[in-house]
């Protein structure tokens, strides 16, 4: 605690107090939602309509506009969870625990989307639904890591212990992700597996690249909305006996 200036720690504790966070989330959500929808509109228009067909893969490459951003999100959310886990473990911040556990289902969902769209993209390219390609395999392992977190949280009854357990696990996972990633990639080159598309970002034409980035940003704002909504729910569940929740139920009547 002592390494942090008092003012910063005071700010954190004020923001981190549940009712304050709840109100703040309410204020942010509409804005995040609007930005998400705008980016989504641009991204979809650019990706599905404006961008030309790929000269090798034809129109099927348009799956890239959800597959790749979803794969990015799956990793991004896991890293965020590990950061939340570190904060929760070091400063015992309840809010970080809540954000961590609220992120897990949506992270798993993005991982699942990346897997399924990868498979749907692969079918016309490879002729089979599943090929042990490096990205898909890593993504599958990442899904297992997410499922581990979710089921561990569900299995421990005392939710404070559960949050601590999950924080530890997320940190362990994040140390392992690069190792897993590189080992899988190495294994893949060794067995000469196929790879989805050609993902050299530099070689991508701007008319194709810009929508991809727009979709990636859109997904981040989407995640922002979902994680805040889920965190609000989680806070209510955890603190259902607290006074601020009672005030809330009265005003909502």
């Amino acid at each position, binding site marked *: 605690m002592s390494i942090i200036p008092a003012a910063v720690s005071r700010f954190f504790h004020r923001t981190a107090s549940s009712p304050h966070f709840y109100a703040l989330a309410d204020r942010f959500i509409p804005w995040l939602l609007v930005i998400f929808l705008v980016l989504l509109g641009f991204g979809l228009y650019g990706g599905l309509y404006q961008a030309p067909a790929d000269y090798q893969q034809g129109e099927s490459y348009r799956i890239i506009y959800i597959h790749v951003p979803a794969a990015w999100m799956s990793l991004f959310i896991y890293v965020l969870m590990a950061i939340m886990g570190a904060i929760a*473990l070091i400063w015992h911040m309840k809010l970080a625990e809540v954000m961590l556990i609220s992120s897990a289902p949506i992270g798993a969902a993005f991982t699942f989307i990346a897997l399924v769209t990868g498979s749907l993209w692969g079918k016309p390219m490879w002729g089979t639904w599943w090929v042990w390609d490096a990205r898909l395999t890593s993504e599958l*392992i990442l899904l*297992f*890591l997410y*499922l*581990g977190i979710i*089921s*561990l949280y569900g*299995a*421990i009854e*005392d939710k*404070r*212990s559960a949050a*601590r*357990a999950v924080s*530890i*696990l997320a*940190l*362990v*996972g994040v*140390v*392992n992700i690069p*190792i*897993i990633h590189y*080992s*899988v990639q*190495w*294994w893949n080159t*060794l067995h000469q597996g196929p790879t989805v598309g050609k993902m050299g970002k530099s070689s991508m034409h701007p008319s194709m690249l810009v929508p991809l980035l727009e979709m990636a940003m859109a997904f981040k704002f989407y995640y922002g909305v979902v994680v805040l909504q889920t965190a609000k729910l989680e806070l209510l569940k955890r603190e259902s006996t607290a006074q601020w929740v009672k005030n809330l139920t009265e005003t909502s009547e």
Partner: protein
Amino acid sequence: MSLTSAFLAIVRRDLLLAFRRRAEMANPLFFFVLVVTLFPLAVGAQPNLLQTMAPGVIWVSALLAALLSLDGMFRSDFEDGSLEQMLLSRHSLSILVLGKIFAHWLVTGVPLMLIAPLLALFLGLQDTAMSTLWLTLLLGTPMLSLIGAIGVALTVGLRRGGMILSLLVLPLYIPLLIFASNAVERAASGLPVTAQLNILLAMLSLAVVLTPWPTAAALKMSVN
């Protein structure tokens, strides 16, 4: 000095305990042999097929056998209150945990290494790959105990933690599985394996340094 003696005391205690429960101790070993035996029965006994599959089969079986033995690592200490006493010891829990992991490796990993030549024989693994199989087991089985310890520590308080334990631990074993079985495979076809062994060594050193912390933290959480 007293830190070393505490470490040694816990290793000695766990070895003594394992010796007094030796019937239980042999189970993962039987399991290891049994799983390996199942493969020829399932895929047929063509020597070529078995030979190519041997490194993978042995390593997957080792993984599963280790998984089976993990549950016992902290279970009895958790149930009889010894773990609480270790938490209150004047030594840091991570050192004691490292001692427990080391003892666990001695009673589960080392037997796997000793019985591996027999299984290699069953599957017709080339003689040239034998020393590499040994080396990968020597470097790899401690990692099975180290990484597994985190998972056990997280689930030891759960009534039915076994399923979740495998879900937590198996994905973390994947890099080890990849490098270890690949090294054996390469050795079988007469290729150099120093790169793989170096990677395994690096991973082992990393695991020795890093895993006791989360394990200790997870045990504290479980005792709660």
